[in-house]
């Protein structure tokens, strides 16, 4: 598919949206810069190196760590379910809900569940799934997908929220953000207390502990995982890390890179259902390990690093393309530079062939990535693959023809010379012609030399 040019144009020419994207991402850029500075975190670069080494090692031994994780989850009384597809994950949850007589579940923010259209799949079968993150709750009411990995409702103003609440909740118009938050808290509080199940994502899966680690600021993940009697965590298989002590590296990077917080407000380290005489917490715990295409990213040693991502969103915030075109013009739930490298790998290179090209290769993403994913390198590799496929399909025929024609001209001096003379006469017209007009409107086009090298050479008089 080609880039959605009309939609992109619309985003770019919407000054309110442009301001929203620029302010939100710019603010987080500043916050991040402060907390990873030399004074604030002298070991920042060392931490990145360590994070990269741990991720590389884990992904290269993924089978081992998944099995270790699995046996430790089971040892703590939890259950592990491997799911090849989103459908398998949804089917498991539907089946369990049916067995336990659950009609409503609460959900905390999870990109993995967005990826598999989890809520929609459940709702087809009359199982209500309520998003409880404030931003996600608003988006669910408005039937929109997240605009940003970390700040899902980055594109909405208080007035948009007022519209959505009035329309969907049937309440009086409320434009004050604090009050909007109170409204959501009230509605969702009842859901937390009534829900038969809580579904969360996972930021990390800890192999040596059989644990799920979730970071958040609102408390909705804590509520989703501790109020209902059943906790289900859905996570991609790449989320595993070997040891609890590795969290010293990852937690020191994640919050700082995502929102400029040394630690997010809540970090939950959960392993299995409640134990012994613990008063609250879930009676049942299920970990759904999702493939959904991830194993396809493993074979290539360069592209494999796409799976190191810890979803901090820093590459989005720093990307000149994301900051212009926003989140919804990317074809999948993962936007920005990380979306540009994982989407074509998940969906097939020809599906969204434009994505690897939607980059100036400025490298800002790689510079801020806490786990040091070399995004530009992967982009280039994917570009090469796109070109290769197009060459095979011969849709690049025109380009090839042009180069063959040039090769023929360049190897026939007389024709080359006469065309070059013609060229220097007509070249000044170039900036006024068809598609080049737009290109030249932003650039100064160099003027051709008064005399070509060949003319100069011919006119040169011998000096001796």
């Amino acid at each position: 598919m080609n880039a959605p040019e009309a939609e992109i144009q619309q985003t770019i020419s919407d000054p309110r949206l442009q301001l929203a994207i620029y302010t939100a991402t710019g603010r987080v850029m500043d916050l991040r810069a402060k907390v990873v500075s030399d004074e604030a975190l002298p070991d920042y670069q060392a931490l990145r190196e360590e994070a990269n080494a741990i991720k590389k090692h884990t992904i290269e031994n993924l089978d081992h760590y998944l099995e270790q994780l699995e046996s430790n989850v089971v040892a703590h009384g939890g259950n592990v379910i491997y799911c090849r597809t989103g459908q398998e994950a949804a089917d498991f949850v539907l089946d369990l809900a049916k067995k336990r007589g659950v009609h409503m579940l609460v959900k905390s923010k999870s990109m993995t569940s967005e990826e598999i259209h989890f809520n929609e799949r459940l709702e087809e079968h009359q199982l209500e799934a309520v998003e409880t993150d404030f931003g996600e709750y608003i988006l669910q009411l408005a039937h929109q997908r997240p605009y940003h990995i970390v700040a899902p409702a980055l594109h909405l103003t208080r007035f948009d929220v007022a519209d959505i609440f009035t329309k969907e909740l049937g309440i009086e118009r409320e434009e004050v953000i604090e009050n909007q938050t109170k409204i959501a808290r009230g509605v969702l509080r009842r859901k937390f207390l009534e829900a038969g199940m809580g579904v969360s994502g996972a930021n990390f899966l800890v192999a040596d502990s059989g644990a799920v680690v979730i970071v958040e600021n609102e408390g909705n993940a804590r509520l989703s995982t501790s109020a209902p009697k059943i906790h289900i965590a859905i996570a991609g298989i790449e989320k595993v890390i070997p040891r609890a002590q590795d969290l010293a590296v990852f937690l020191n990077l994640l919050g700082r890179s995502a929102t400029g917080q040394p630690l997010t407000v809540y970090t939950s380290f959960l392993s299995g259902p409640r134990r012994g005489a613990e008063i609250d917490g879930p009676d049942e715990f299920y970990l759904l390990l999702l493939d959904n295409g991830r194993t396809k990213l493993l074979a290539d040693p360069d592209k494999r690093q796409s799976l190191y991502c810890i979803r901090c969103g820093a590459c989005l915030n720093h990307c000149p393309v994301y900051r212009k075109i926003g989140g919804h013009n990317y074809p999948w739930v993962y936007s920005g530079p990380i979306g540009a490298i994982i989407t074509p790998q998940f969906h097939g290179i020809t599906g969204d062939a434009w994505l690897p090209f939607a980059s100036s290769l400025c490298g800002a993403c790689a510079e801020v990535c806490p786990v040091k994913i070399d995004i530009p390198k992967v982009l280039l590799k994917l570009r090469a693959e796109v070109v290769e496929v197009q060459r095979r399909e011969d849709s690049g025929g025109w380009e090839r023809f042009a180069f063959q024609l040039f090769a023929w001209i360049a190897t026939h001096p007389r024709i080359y010379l006469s065309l070059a003379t013609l060229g220097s006469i007509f070249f000044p017209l170039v900036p006024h012609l068809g598609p080049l007009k737009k290109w030249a409107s932003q650039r100064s086009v160099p003027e051709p030399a008064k005399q070509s090298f060949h003319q100069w050479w011919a006119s040169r008089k011998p000096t001796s």
Partner: protein
Amino acid sequence: MTAREQILGDIRKALKGTAGQPALIEAASRSSSQQLPASLEQLPAPTLRIPRSDRNLYADLFGQKFENLGGKCFRVRNTSAVVPAIAELLTQKSAVASNSPFLRKCGITGLPQVHAGFTERDDLKEACASVDIGITSADYALAATGTLVMLSSPDEARLVSLLPPSHIAIFPRSHLLANLDELLSILPRPADQTSSMVLITGPSRTADIEQRLVRGVHGPGQIFAVIVDEE
């Protein structure tokens, strides 16, 4: 083929020969996971960065960080000074206290407005959903980030620090650690101790709309710490 077999099989096939992985580990031949493949030994030991500073400074540092986040920190000399220190917070308010023995020692559980001694989940849930304040101890506190560390146990339920709009954590000064890294050096595998360890760093907050910071969106919007110098 089960989903498990297929996913693990696909991983092994994809990694074979490209990941320094002798890909070796066919499920059948893997009788004991004690026998680690050579590639696993390449993982260096975790690096924990624990600053060597004067432990006496931790309480001040914690207080400063905790208040920067929007909390309020009290320091009292001994357990008998706790109730007077927070009397004002409790005026005209209702509260639930956890079963922590330290709270009993501080005289919290005897206060008229404090409900305590819950052992049943539904009773606890209902109480926590209706009171103004949840009172707990804290298993550890991290000075570098102003963080409270709560391990779930029969003494400390999860919901007390979560459902009420305010949370007060009362703990002895000896529970203070330097930072997250020190916590992980003391608890290398938290799952051995508890099914739930939660780090609390500031009041519940959101900035989802127009980056406007709003406190108390789902968890407590007000948090208080009381550090007791002598146990």
